[in-house]
Every structure is written in structure tokens, then in C-alpha cells.
């Protein structure tokens, strides 16, 4: 009887155990490199930045340094509706093409244009800066009673920009200080809003936008303030960053269908997003 039981268990294990093998991907994967251009403009910027790089096959990622993907000899020009333009220069520090914001005024509601020439090929895109910023940010810290590890939650509320569909991206950092042994140095914890970092007013027009996140601090500590950031972004920017978040979040799930990130870069093998946003930053003292 025992022999039968063991046999059954061994066979069941064989069924359930999977087998993993390496696959020669050389003929299966897309080979062409994309020219990836990402640039986001905001009236609150102090520096205008555009990053130009190339994609690579993931099968080749082990053999290359990420910096090799950066294109540092492109010609990148931003212009506005009136024909004012600025040529961005490459920075070795940020790996981006930059110009001071004063060289091209970014005005809410206006359209801007990007032209990039990479290895003799031209890429174009345009964006429109959202007309309004989010308004009236509030934040509230809620203790989690059942959590003994210093896990706390932060609720952020903003008024929706009225009568239009908006796409918000929310971030926050909490400043706190340990009270365990006297008053310690102030420290900063980032708030993780998970999926709620990306929120829209779809079907909730003119309502309050509320997102909940959590952060960790020491058990014996006090929270001092929170720096809240709320971006009102063009949809394509919202979708692109959300795609990156979701794909990363679900990377280990084999059944997750990766989100296809949008692109508005026109030109041969061009990919990426050139978009506008408005940023609201508020320091809230507790």
C-alpha cells in the first residue's frame, strides 16, 4: 500500500514540477534598435531636459553597459508656436540634453515642438502643456494600529481640475524624527502609493481626488511635515510612466500582459514620449 502511495506522489510531483530551459533567442527576437527620446516640459521647470538613447534586445543586455545606450551626439531643438527655439546641449551628468528654462518660456496651454537629429535621421514630436495645475492639496497621516513596525499611511487629497479629464501622478516624502533617544536628526521616507500613484478623474468629474500610500518610520518617532507633489500630465505621459510602473511591478508574474507604452515620436524606429505637465508641490506641516 505504501509503495502505491509513494508511486502516486512521485508521479504527481512529475506533473506539477516544471522544467526550465534556455532558448536560443537569436532568431526569435526583434533585432532593430529603436531611437528612444523622452522629454517632459513643465512651466515649473528650471531646466528643460530631453534624453536620447537607443534600445537594445534584452538578449544583449548582459554584455553592454547602460551608458552605451545613451546617444550624446544628437541635435535636439525645442521650439514654440511663435517659432522661438532653443538648442539643447548634452550633459554628462544627467545623460540628457539640457537648456535653462529661461531660454524658452513654457506657458500653460501652449504647444511645443521637438526636433531631434540622430545619426542623420530626423525625429519630431509635439506636446501641449496642460492649462491648469491641481489645487488645494491636503495630507493626513493615519496610524496603522495593527502595525508594530512603524508602518503608517498618508492620505493625500486634491481638488479635481473642473470640467475636463485629468491625469494625475502623485508623489510624497515624509520628514520625521526619531524620539527614541532624545531628538534625532530629521529623516525622510518616501511614500509608496502603489497603483494609486496614477489616478484619473474618469467617471468622477469634479470630485475630490484621494490617494492613499504608506511609509515606514521608527516606532518611537514624530512626523514633521510632508512634501507633496501632484503632476497634472498629458495622458500620453501618464500612460507611459504608468506602463513602466505596472510592467516593473508585475515583472515576476508570467501571466501578466505587459502594458504597451505609448509613443508620439515620429521618425524611423522612433519611440518615446514628448509631453507636457504641470507640477504642484506643497510642504504640509503636521
Amino acid at each position, binding site marked *: 500500500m505504501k509503495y502505491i502511495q509513494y508511486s502516486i506522489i512521485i508521479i504527481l510531483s512529475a506533473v506539477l514540477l516544471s522544467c526550465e*530551459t534556455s532558448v536560443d533567442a537569436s532568431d526569435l527576437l526583434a533585432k532593430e534598435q529603436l531611437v528612444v527620446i523622452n522629454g517632459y516640459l*513643465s512651466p515649473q521647470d528650471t531646466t528643460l531636459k530631453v534624453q536620447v538613447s537607443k534600445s537594445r534586445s*534584452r538578449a544583449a543586455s548582459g554584455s553592454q553597459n547602460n551608458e552605451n*545606450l545613451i546617444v550624446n551626439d544628437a541635435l535636439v531643438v525645442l521650439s514654440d508656436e511663435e517659432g522661438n527655439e532653443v538648442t539643447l546641449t548634452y550633459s554628462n551628468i544627467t545623460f540628457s540634453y539640457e537648456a535653462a528654462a529661461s531660454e524658452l518660456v513654457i506657458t500653460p496651454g501652449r504647444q511645443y515642438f521637438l526636433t531631434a537629429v540622430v545619426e542623420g535621421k530626423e525625429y519630431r514630436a509635439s506636446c501641449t502643456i496642460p492649462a491648469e495645475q491641481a489645487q488645494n492639496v491636503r495630507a493626513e497621516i493615519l496610524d496603522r494600529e495593527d502595525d508594530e513596525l512603524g508602518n503608517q499611511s498618508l492620505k493625500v487629497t486634491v481638488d479635481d481640475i473642473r470640467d475636463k479629464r485629468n491625469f494625475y501622478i502623485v508623489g510624497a516624502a515624509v520628514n520625521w524624527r526619531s524620539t527614541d533617544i532624545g531628538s534625532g536628526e530629521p529623516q525622510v521616507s518616501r511614500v*509608496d502609493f502603489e497603483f494609486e500613484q496614477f489616478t484619473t478623474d474618469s467617471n468622477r468629474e469634479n470630485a475630490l481626488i484621494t490617494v492613499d500610500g504608506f511609509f515606514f518610520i521608527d516606532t518611537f518617532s514624530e512626523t514633521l511635515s510632508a512634501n507633496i507633489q501632484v503632476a497634472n500630465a498629458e495622458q500620453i505621459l501618464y500612460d507611459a510612466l504608468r506602463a*513602466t510602473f505596472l510592467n*516593473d511591478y508585475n515583472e515576476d508574474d508570467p501571466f501578466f500582459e*505587459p502594458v*504597451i507604452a505609448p509613443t508620439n515620436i515620429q521618425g524611423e524606429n522612433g519611440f518615446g514620449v514628448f509631453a507636457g505637465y504641470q507640477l504642484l508641490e506643497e510642504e504640509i506641516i503636521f
Partner: protein
Amino acid sequence: MKTKQVLLAFWVLAISITNVFGQSSNQKTKKHTISGYVKEVGSQEYLPMVSIYVPASKVGTTTNDYGFFSLTIPEGTHELIVSFIGYGTIRKTVELTDDVELSFEMELSAESLDEVIIEADRGVNESQVTQMSVVTIKPSEIEDIPAILGEKDVIKALQLMPGIQRGNEGSAGFFVRGGTPDQNLIILDEAPVYNSNHLFGIFSVFNGDAIKSIETYKGGFPARFGGRLSSVLKIDTKNGNKERLSGKVNVGLISSSLVLEGPIKKGKTSFIFSGRRTYADLLSKPFQSSDFKAGYFFTDLNFKIHHVFNEKNKLYWSNYFGQDRFTGDERDDGERFKTRLFWGNITSTLRWNRQFSDKFFSNTSLIFSNYNFGLKYDEKLNDSRFLFKLSSGINDYGIKADFDYYPNPNHSIRFGVASTYHSFIPKQSKIRETGEDNNDVKQKIESLESAIYAEDNWKITENLSLSPGARVTHFQFKSKSYLNFEPRATIAWNIKPDLALKASYSKMNQYIHLLSNSGIGLPTDLWVSSTDNLKPQVSQQYALGLAKDFLDEGYAITLEGYYKKMDDVISYKEGASFLLLEDLETGREIDWEENITTGEGWAYGAELLLRKKTGKLTGWLGYTLSWSERQFDELNQGRKFFARYDRRHDLSLVGIYKPHERITLSGSWVFSSGNNFNLPDREAISNTANFPIPISLFNGGTTPFSTERNNFRGESYHRLDLGVQFHKRFAKHRERTWGFSVYNIYGRRNPFYYYFDDAELKKVSILQFIPSINYTYKF
């Protein structure tokens, strides 16, 4: 537009009815009707699809689903041939001077293996029926086809037919002519079955032991079926033996099953009970520690009672209960944690057959169907308790009346009415926590789906037949109602007696939808209703085909091409599925409609089926060449993309060889092009780098991405399964069978999914070389 369509439908019906009665009133020769039932000797089981043919006048009919037939022919002496593959043919001479009731009892015939299909099988042969795009497979064939772990499976067997494709490795979900699993109408004794999977799709819920007949329609849908776009799988269970107690016990590696059937009142009332349960959980119990126990099982129970009041009134009460259940129990110093995960179907159907006259037959059904998915977590600490219950599901309450009318041999008319009240519960949760207020959430959607239909099988001339039909459907959700007209038609032209050219058109509407976030048939997949915002899915399918029978050799060949256009098909928006799962975890209310987008679909291709139905060697060769595409404005940046299971080639070869009554050898080989996978196959510097708000969790560096949905065509799939059965017959109908089979005998590592491990592309494969053994005893 809708009103015009409805008027047109009734006009067509009126013309047809005028035509029918016009013919009958013009008859000069006196005619009489032979009507009755065909049953199986020994069990008194009513047999559907039996051919009753009069060779002299070349007219005939077939029995309906309840074994009833009616044939109106001129007065005089006629020879009737009653035949059905697998049963001994009956020849009977009838002196027809008045209407007559005749019942036939057919004997299951082992000798029929050597028979060839006779020309009299007119109602059954591919070239001699009007209907096209039908797959019929006998339960006995399913018994013989090798199956994974010896679990004989209706759906796995159907997946070997052209046009019916499997999904991922091992999955019991099926994809018919580019459709999706939720577009398949699966009916068990008239009741729809919402989840046909056990163990995440490795097995289907249909226990083959209790099944009497299986019919699958891929296109050219008769008007009596509706509510799904892509296919109809109709499974009818046995009524139970009315003469003696009989049964079957099957012991397999992972499950055992029992069938018991017999008379409650001999000749009048019978019952059949069948049950199946897996026992991995029971066997593993002794090996688990006392402070942590986990287990999984699935079970199926079928129970049916059939009562014959008299030949004209019969009652059927069919019930099915099936469930999958995961359990986990953990104990630690007075603390206890209990987890339960369960899902399953319950169906119950009460049917009343009424034969009003020798030409007029009806069936009325009361139908209940339930699908429920639940999760329960119970945590008991020293002085506190936390209980969380979550469930989702659907309840259907339906009533249906179907009428069969046989005015003359050239017409078989069916019409009927059906109405189903759907009660969807997308989410119901209950939280109980010591010291906290109760938290109860229940979402409910209610809708009413109704239909009327009429269809005719009209033999216009000896060589030309037409099956026109129309179905008018109505769907009510709150104040929003949808009224749709669905014309159906199939025409068949016999170029030669054994060669037919066929064409069909059908329009279908689907008012309920499955939100699937995995594509692999997880129980968390959610059925939802059309609403005022979410329109019904619609399909139109055109098919053209040739059917040829080689009657002397027992071969049949069909070749069909099809084109199917689907509108308002649904899908989750990009990334939305996991928001829904997140919602289930947190209990936060979100509107599921926000996560849905609708689009279009196209499916087209060709199918070839060469089948050998009789003789010692039976089986088939099936080949499908197909394309399946989708386009959604909000997916894949609005670009058209290939569906996940779009595969260019599917080939299957199935052989069952019975050299001797004591041995059955079987094998099947399948080959298909690779499935499409979503594989982020490129990477680039992260797009979050210059955005002022850090994106949660993201560590920066590079971002993996792809630019097309279903961008990666996996490697081709193939495998060989072999089986052998040894039978031994004893006195008093007893028989024992030892069965041995091996799934994927050459251990092909077929892709289940792919992923990148650094720069290396890895393939995960499951189900390689799975041997099994099972023992069956019939009595």
C-alpha cells in the same frame, strides 16, 4: 433598422409556414404518419440522431434529442431502415394504411466495428445533412483517446478537432475559430455551464461516464442556440438504465469515479448517479506536519432521474455539482489560521417532454445554473478573531420551451422561446474583526435575456436543402434594453449523392462577458453583464464547405473555409486587470466598467477533417489554417494585433485501433505553430529618469518593454500520446479494463511561458512524459 430586421424575420417565417401548409393541402395521395421513439436495448436509453429512412421513396428523418421521430409518407407498403453507427441496423416492412406509432430498440453491436456506413444513414453522413461546421464525437471515442493522467476528457478530445484549438499547454479552455473561451456556449442538459475547468484548466468538469451525446457547432448555428459568439457545445447525460442496475467503477492515479444507474420503477423511472473525486489531498495527509496542512481536490457529481408517465409525457430532472477546493490550516500556540479557496458550478434542469401529436413534440425546461468563486480566511488569535470572506459569481434562472413540428418529410420545423434572469455578483465581501464594526460589501447586477426562434430543415429538392432560421433576442439591463435580430441560414447542394457543397451564414449576439486577466482560466475570471455602457458582443460568420463521404470505405472528408467578424468584443484596458485584483485585495470599490474597453475582431481560415468512422481502425486527421486578429482603440496604441492563440497551423492525427475485442490501441499526435506571448523583449534607459516625481518601487536603470501586444511568437508545439487498454468480458454484462497511457511520450518541452533571466531567454515547460494507469470495472 432593428424594427425592419424583425419585420423581415417574421415575413420569412410567414412565407415558410405558408409554404409548408400549402404543400400539405395540395397533396393528392393520402399520407400517414409513422411516429415513435428509438431506444437502446438493455437500458431503454433514448437515442438521438438515429436515421429512419425509406429507401424506395428516398425520404427519411432522424430522431431528435429525446429519441422521437415523425415521418409522413404515402399510404402503402414501405421498408424502413433504422440505423445508427455502433448499433445493429433494423429493417422493418410497414403496411401503412393509417397513422401508426412505432418504437424501435437498437442493439449496441460489437460487430458494427466491421460494418460500413450504409447509404441509409442519410441523417448522419456528412454529405447528407444540411448542417455544416458540426463536430460530433461519441463518448465511446473519448474513452479510447489517450488522456493526461488517464482522465478522459470531453474538451481535451474536442481540442483534437480542426477549428477547436487548445489554449496553453494542458488547458481545457478552448478557442473556436478565433474566438475566446467565454464565447463558447457550454450546455449540460440545457443548463449553461460557466466554468468548465478544474485545476486551472488541466481538466474539464465533464465526467465522461455519465455522458450520452456530445455535439459541437463551430458555425452555421441553428437558431435554437444563441447567446455566445463562437461555438455551442451541447452535452446531454444518460437517463439511466430502466431495466437493471448497472454501473462502472474507475480507479485512476489522481481520481476515482463511480457511475451507478438503474430502475426505480422498472420501465418507468430510472436514475443515474455519477461521481468523481481526486484524492491527492487525502493521500498526502499522512505526510503533512500536524501544525500545517494543505490540500486540494476537485469533485463532480451528476444525478438524474427520468420518469416516463406514458409514451407522450416524460420528465427529466438533471443535476450537476462540481467544485474545486484548496484548503490550508496552520496552528501555532493557540493561534489558528484557516484558508479556503473554492470555485464551482451547480446546475439543475427540470424538463418535461410532451408529444402533442404524431407530428408535434415539445420540451419545456426550467433551468438553474450557478457559478461561484470564494475565498475565506479565518484567523483566530488568543482573544481576537479576524474573518474575511470574498466571493463572486453568477446565478441564472431560466425557462425555455422548444417545439418540434414535422409536417411532411421535406420540413422539420423547430421553434421556441427562452428567457433567463441573470444575477451577477461581481463582488461580495464580509469582514468580521473583534472590536471592529462589521464590513459587508455586495455588488449586484441583474439582467434579463430572452429570445424567440424558429428554424426549418427544408428539403427543397432531392439534391438541395436549406436550413433557414431566425432568432430575435432581447436583453434588459435596468432601463436599457437591446433588441437584436439574428438571421441564420445553411444551404446544402448535393452535387452527387455522397458529395455536398454547403454554405452558411449566422449572426450572434452575446450579452454576458468574461473578464479574464490571465488567459489561462483562473477562477478569478469574472462574468459580467452588458450594461447601458457596455454593448453586447456581435459576430457574423460566413462559411463555405465541401463534404464527401466514401461510404464503402467508411471515410468522410470535410473541407470548410470561414470568415468571422466580431464587434464590441471586450478586453481589460492596458494594465487594468491587476487594478481589479488589487481592488479585490483591498476591498476598495471601483467601477469595473472603467477597466473595460471594446474593439473588433477578425478570424478566418480553413479546416480539413478526414475521418474514418468504422472498421477496426478509426480516427481522424484534422488540419486548421487560421488567422485571428483584434483591434481596440485603447490597446496596443490602437493598432491591430494577433490574438494570443492565433496560430497559423494546427494538425492533429488520432487513431484508435481495435484488432481484437480484448484490446484497444490508441494514439494522437498534435502539431501547431507557436502561441503568441507578451514578452518585453527590448530595454532602454528608463523613461522615469527626468520626471520630478519618483515612480514607486522603480529602481531606475533600464526599462524592459515591447512595442506590440502579443509580440513574441513562441516555438511550435507538438506531442505524441499513446494508450492501450486491455478488456476482459465476463458473464452478466461485466467487464474489466486496464488502461495504460503516456502523455507526451517523447518528452517534448513545449513552451508554457517565456521570461528573461538577465540576458538569457528562458522557457518554462510543463507536462512532459506523464504516464498513467487506470482500472475500470463495469457491471
